[in-house]
């Protein structure tokens, strides 16, 4: 962890989003926001962990979860995380067209994820598994729902960024905005990995 600075760092210039001091401070600030969000999800995971068995008269995790849609959602989100990563790669190369292309792909994959998730929730509601039914379902709905709301917000955010990129190209400010957006998106991917593991797969272990 405490490697010395690499040799190329003596000649390598800061990427554009870090080159401007004010913008780089905003990136630090965004990391701090992500820290608070980790704990939002931490609290939701705590609640889910405690309420896992509190199924009352409702279905249990094992009865409820269908792994098909879950695997599809996982695949969509993992891929979108990869595509926004390629977008940042393109941005660092100064290629605004490629950046916008990858962002568009990310948006579409994200929309596919949200669509699948909504479909999943609707099918649960159809068999009476709403969050009124049991504490377990309340905890499940708020955990997965908060994540889904984050993804939905991220989609709208990316759309506004596309307009800004189209108008202004890659500047210190737009690059910083896209970079923080990518941090947000990868972070949601990490949260989903834990939902996938701790909620869905864990529900199938029993």
């Amino acid at each position, binding site marked *: 962890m405490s490697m010395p600075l690499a040799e190329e760092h003596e000649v390598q210039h800061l990427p554009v989003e870090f080159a401007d001091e004010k913008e780089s401070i905003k990136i630090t*600030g965004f990391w701090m926001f992500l820290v608070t969000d980790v704990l939002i999800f931490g*609290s939701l995971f705590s609640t889910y962990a*405690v309420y896992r068995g*509190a199924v009352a008269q409702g279905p249990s995790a094992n009865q409820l979860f269908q792994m098909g849609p879950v695997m599809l959602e996982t695949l969509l989100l993992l891929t979108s995380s990869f595509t926004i990563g390629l977008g940042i790669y393109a941005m660092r190369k100064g290629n605004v067209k490629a950046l916008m292309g990858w962002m568009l792909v990310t948006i579409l994959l994200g929309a596919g994820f949200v669509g699948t998730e909504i479909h999943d929730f609707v099918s649960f509601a159809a068999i009476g598994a709403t*969050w009124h*039914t049991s*504490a377990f379902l*309340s905890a499940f709905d*708020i955990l997965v729902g908060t994540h889904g709301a984050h993804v939905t917000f991220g989609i709208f955010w990316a759309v506004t960024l596309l307009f*800004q990129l189209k108008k202004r190209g890659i500047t210190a400010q737009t690059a910083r905005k896209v970079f923080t957006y990518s941090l947000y998106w990868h972070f949601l991917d990490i949260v989903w990995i834990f939902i996938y593991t701790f909620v869905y797969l864990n529900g199938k272990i029993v």
Partner: protein
Amino acid sequence: MPSFVSYLIHTLFPPSVRLPDILLIDVGLVFGIIGIVVFLTKTGRWGSLWRDWLTTVDHKKIAVMYLIAALLMLFRGGVDALMIRAQLAAPGAHFMPASQYDEVFTTHGTIMIFFMAMPFIFALFNAVVPLMIGARDVAFPRLNAMSYWLFAMGAALFNVSFIIGGSPNAGWTAYPPYTGLAYNPGPGENYYFLALLIAGLGTTMTGINFLVTTIRMRAPGMTLMKMPMFVWSTMVTSALILFAFPPLTVALAMSLFDRLFGSSFFTLAHGGMPMMYVNLFWLFGHPEVYILVIPLFGVFSEVVATYSRKALFGYPLMVVSILAIMFLSYGTWVHHFFTMGAGPGVNAFFGLSTMLIAIPTGVKIFNWIFTMWGGRIQMTTAMLYQLAFIPTFVIGGATGVLLAVVPADYQFHNSYFLIAHFHNVIIGGTVFGLLSALYYWWPKMFGMKLNERQGRWAFWLFFIGFWVTFTPQYFLGLKGMTRRIYTYPAGFGWHQLNVISTVGALIMGAAFVVLVYNIVWSLRFGERDLTGDPWDGRTLEWALPSPVPEYNFARIPVVHERDAWWAMKQRGQSLAGSLRAEDVHDVEMPKNTPIPFLIGVSFFVMGFGMTFKWWPIAIIGFIGVILCLLFSGFDYDDHHHLKADVIRNTEASLGRLQG
């Protein structure tokens, strides 16, 4: 139509709150608002209100707004306290109905913690932290303004409950199942949850803002170990806010969803566990206690060093102990509910971790005492609060260790012993610290000193009133008087002690009146601070003129040692008079914006709509929030350049320009 009107009246003014006093206050409020509107119109100040205050992003002005809000809320919370004491002064008393008593102690606690102490602390952060670290503003000035307006609108929403719909009545902790719809159908608890969610959002942003400010905005040369202690305490408090507020947000949101959208988090019938709320609430609540006191540890470290005219004793140890407190404060939250029935392992763990915190706190106490040792102590009002703080906080801390002994806690739990303990640390630590800071930094904020003689009167009244109020409460607790009790029969032997306590509360009320008189008097006749350094201070804020110009530093200072300003003075340097015209350059300043204010208003509208489940209003507020976010996303015009000439002229008129 008539049925709609009667519905409106019934919802807004349910029979339980249609009391003469509240109607009287409603009328008074209406006249008050009309009076303010007429005053602003007649003196033509609407424009200046909008330009200088509502749209400002200047941290110094935001500090003033926080301070005004905090003092107003101190008044409101104090009146609540006096009403509680009036009700308890005699056995079998019916000073007010039981339902209203429940509302009064709930609003007292909530307002004092969230809407008095927190904004007062943020007023201090805003007023001095950028000055202490040699910066021109905080890291995110617009976010800072937004934090303020979210806090202000949260506070406003909470206070509206008093006049429309009925106040929350489940204590400041709002434990379910009593906050569930089944037991608490009115809008009061909705107000509580929504107001705290909105204000909490603002607080989280403040935490992010000041953490990044202290990390990234320090003047060249100011390494971590050269930061003033108050900056350290700001950094640690901000980190605590980051880690503490999310669990609160989640707990509040879950309770709110149970009430508004029929989820089953805390309703027993569907497997919910009310104790899970308690767990999450105190996951926030215990770090919150340290959020409330660590900034004041910073204040005391500055005050004691300045008025003892000595460097702070054991600075590295102070840093280590403040960090130790930060870590330990995350491992103690169960001591607020030892009696819930967790296993002995759980209680033993959290009892021990609670006692451990006494060690770093003790280290700090000794360091303050050693700082005074051999110093030339000046007995100013700020220093008096410091001297009062040490024994008061030690006694409050010691009773806290008693409460941490689990078997004993089964007796003390939710008795007046607990009430006395936490007032002893929160008033003895936080409020004494806030008042000390008020006297210490007032000249920097407003350009004149607070009158010392009046200040000493306020201090002695407050200090004596405090002990007279809370000493009897320890004994009341040991005699079995429980928290939130409405009234008691005559034969329990509680009467005399309660009378003494009420007398003490009246003395504290008198202290508040003297304090307000002191402030008003000093604003008109107070001694002007012409040097900018009235106390012969040690840290960079005293290098600047009072009040501080918009851009703070005409030239960013370079820091070489701890207590940078003191060291400069020792070397015969000063920022005043040494500034050369060619060293002044154009300065980039953040531009004023109405968005933070408008987003606050939108949140208020949304919260108000949700409180009464009036969805159209809530949706209007929500759309307002979205529009504000969209607008600020596309707004690239966020700064302007202050010309070097303007700065030169200002500095010259202050006599600070060379030649």
